[in-house]
């Protein structure tokens, strides 16, 4: 068995494991309830410091606009 054969075998096994890990990740996500609270999930980017409804960026030395989100 030349080195090429060994390496390609290892790579194919590794590739298969890699693919398997993706399946496992998807399964874990479903099991863990990642697909359940979709509305709440979208709001994960906000919290007390940077709450929803407040614009978080402005040009320097400009008057920041504090608009509450009315939708």
């Amino acid at each position: 068995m030349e080195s090429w054969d060994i390496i390609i075998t290892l790579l194919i096994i590794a590739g298969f494991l890699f693919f398997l890990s993706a399946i496992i990740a998807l399964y874990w996500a479903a099991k863990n309830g990642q697909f359940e609270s979709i509305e709440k999930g979208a709001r994960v980017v906000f919290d007390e410091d940077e709450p929803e409804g407040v614009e978080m960026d402005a040009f320097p030395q400009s008057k920041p606009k504090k608009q509450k989100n009315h939708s």
Partner: protein
Amino acid sequence: MDTTADTELNKSEGVTERVTLSKIDQSMKWAGIFFVASSVVWLMIGTIFALIASIKLHNPNFLASLEFFTFGRSRSAHLNAMIFGWANNAAFAVALWIMARLCKSAVRHGGLLLIAGIVWNIGVTIGVFGILTGGLTSVEWLEMPVAVTPILALAYIMIGVWSVVAFVHRQTGHVYVSQWYVLGGTFWFPWLYVIALVMILMVPARGVVQPITNWWFAHNVLGLWLTPIGLAAAYYMIPKVIGKPIYSYYLSLMGFWTLALFYNWAGIHHLIGGPIPIWLQTAGSVASVMMTIPVIVTGINHHMTAVGNASAVWRSPTLRFVVFGAISYTLTSLIGSAMALREVNEVTHFTHFTVGHAHHGVYAFFTMIMFGSIYFMMPRLLHKEWPSANLIYIHFWTTALGITGYVVALTIGGWIQGIQMNNPEIAFLDVVQNTVPWLTARTIFGVCITIGHIAFFIHFFWMLIGKTQPLNEGPTLLQRESDA
């Protein structure tokens, strides 16, 4: 802003408590600064080589006497400096920071991250130097001499492992879509790199298996590393800055999983019409077209979230760049899917159209999103405001107009080139002559972009080194009016 949940990092027990955003930002401060600073430096280096390479294509005598700057070396140095220098450093900074914030856990062992960054940049420096001195491997996207690979691997492992550790110690239940993308990219990138290295350079495969591996690798660096990081940033920045959640979060998750499914196969579209089995070519074409599913889905999310808030987008330096990037993502991906169809490919293959498309993706999408993310991230890391709004305006307008002109010039020029090459009546030399005005236009727009980069470079280091500005009451810094 102390809340009951705001406790110190409990080092003795190794337990991370929920920490406020500012503490997370501070824990990432030095690593973040280092990565972004390196990326900005590499951006300038890559830009210089870009100009040299671009000028040489229509003025071959430019710097012709200097061995270091021959086109093959300049172009390869440009590519590697931009991808492994600018893009990867920016990706590390932004991805780690978003991951830390979304995991709601402070960076542990930030010093390690800093060392990893230094090792990474040493590797890339040696690599680019190796290219300029003629030691390039002549394999696309793998031009850096093989000897630097262990250095890059070591650095990457440290960074990648950190990302996974942060995820494992997360304080949140829900895994936000940006975290999915960052984790995906973290796993995909080393896999791609190792396979390509082994099968092309170390134990070379025979015959056409090499280019097949090469283009699977090169395209996936774009699709399974840079794209996920770019999308992760966009999915974080757009809702964060506007203050509204993503338009359809369910669609975004679907977009992630379909991207994971389809993108891997698409790379073969670089070899359509080549001496490789037709089923493989068809797989590449089909996967590239199926990619329109995640692209449309992501497009819906980004655009619909931004669309009702155009003024908020305009008011925010971050979102000007990020939304530009998001729009470019949709556009470049749809064009890319079209290019994978055989009929279109017969015209665009081997022309400047492909170059324009590549820059549409890496620059108009990824780089612009990175610019926006850096504008958002740095004030929070440094607790300083960006000193000058004008420099941001200059940066935005020169790069936005520059890359638009660049892509348009090469798209039109490349299409004409392709049509003419398929016409046996037209001599090849004439076809080449006809591309020169478009290449000259490209250089001009490249100079426009360079001005923007210079503005960004100056602005970044001014902010870094300059005196602390009086804290703006604006929302760029996590200060509420009540705390002022």
